[in-house]
């Protein structure tokens, strides 16, 4: 069977940085997997994501999260200008994994699932999102809703190719 789950690109920050962009993403894979381990210069923040430079209100996502109590919560965000992956804190202890399905398909909208862990607040998150575009994803920008990613943050992009 063909081996897959290929590393496409990785960025490890040596200083604070506002955003990271993966560009010229090959269309040869079936799905993409983006893994972040990040911290924020301003404390609690959320990691946001846009595709192909689209800053319009073409994104939507449902988040649910479990705080360190017995109750879990959710929010629905429609007509947003980004996908919120959540969970960035003061240190590089916060992880996100985002699966972007059928990203190179040019006839349908794109769906994705992200999961995150907030070590400062002991919370988990899962977001399910849609980018309402039929364009193949060839660029991913990751940035924060406040502050900068701090040195030591890592961003890894993988491709998974179905047989």
């Amino acid at each position, binding site marked *: 069977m063909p*081996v*897959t789950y290929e590393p496409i690109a990785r960025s490890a920050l040596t200083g604070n940085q506002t955003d990271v962009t993966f560009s010229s993403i090959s269309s040869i894979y079936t799905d993409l997997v983006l893994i972040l381990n990040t911290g924020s210069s301003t404390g609690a923040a959320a990691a946001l994501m846009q595709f192909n430079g689209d800053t319009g209100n073409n994104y939507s996502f449902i988040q649910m999260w479990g705080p360190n109590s017995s109750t879990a919560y959710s929010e629905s965000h429609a007509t947003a200008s980004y996908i919120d992956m959540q969970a960035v804190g003061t240190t590089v202890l916060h992880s996100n994994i985002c699966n972007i399905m059928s990203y190179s398909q040019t*006839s349908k909208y794109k769906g994705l699932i992200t999961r995150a862990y907030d070590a400062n607040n002991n919370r988990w998150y899962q977001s399910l999102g849609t980018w309402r575009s039929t364009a193949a994803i060839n660029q991913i920008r990751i940035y924060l809703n406040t502050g900068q990613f701090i040195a030591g943050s890592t961003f890894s992009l993988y491709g998974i190719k*179905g047989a």
Partner: protein
Amino acid sequence: MPILGTVASQFSGKPFGSFESIATVAADSNGLSDINFNTIPATYAHLQLRMNLFNSSGTNAFVTFNGDTTTNYWQHGIESYGGGSTSVYSGGNQYAGFVGNLVLSNTYPGVSILDIFDYQNTSIRKVIKGSYGTNMNLASPGYSRNFYSDATWGNTSAITSINIQCQTGVFSQYSTISLYGIKG
């Protein structure tokens, strides 16, 4: 190359070596009422099923193993409808399969990732962890869904086949299901 970015080709061609593609099925213009992966190799430790599905009826997808369509599956998890709260759900012994309540649309993709652990182990029942749902750009509670679940197939047989059935109608064109094997 963007100033703050990374050109996404620096590592291409260097696969890990333990994650292999077994098979992919994509629906054409006729659609598919169900999808079968038969004769799954026994050379892996775990399986991963990745689905990107469309359906014009707004329906569910059900996954069953080895042709077992009895109420032999348990599913427990948490679901978000997009409102201010979530609910815990339990599908103990009532579904002939799982991945229920995945609301499918012909416009918005129903996405699903299922990890099937120790699928060859004949001493244990099989455990499946899943994240799945559909986001339909709704600001208020509606038909968008976000699920995280753990499931069990109450059988100690090695999994040799997987069936994904569309509850109503067909998985429409551009639906894609891929099965992967992860070596131990």
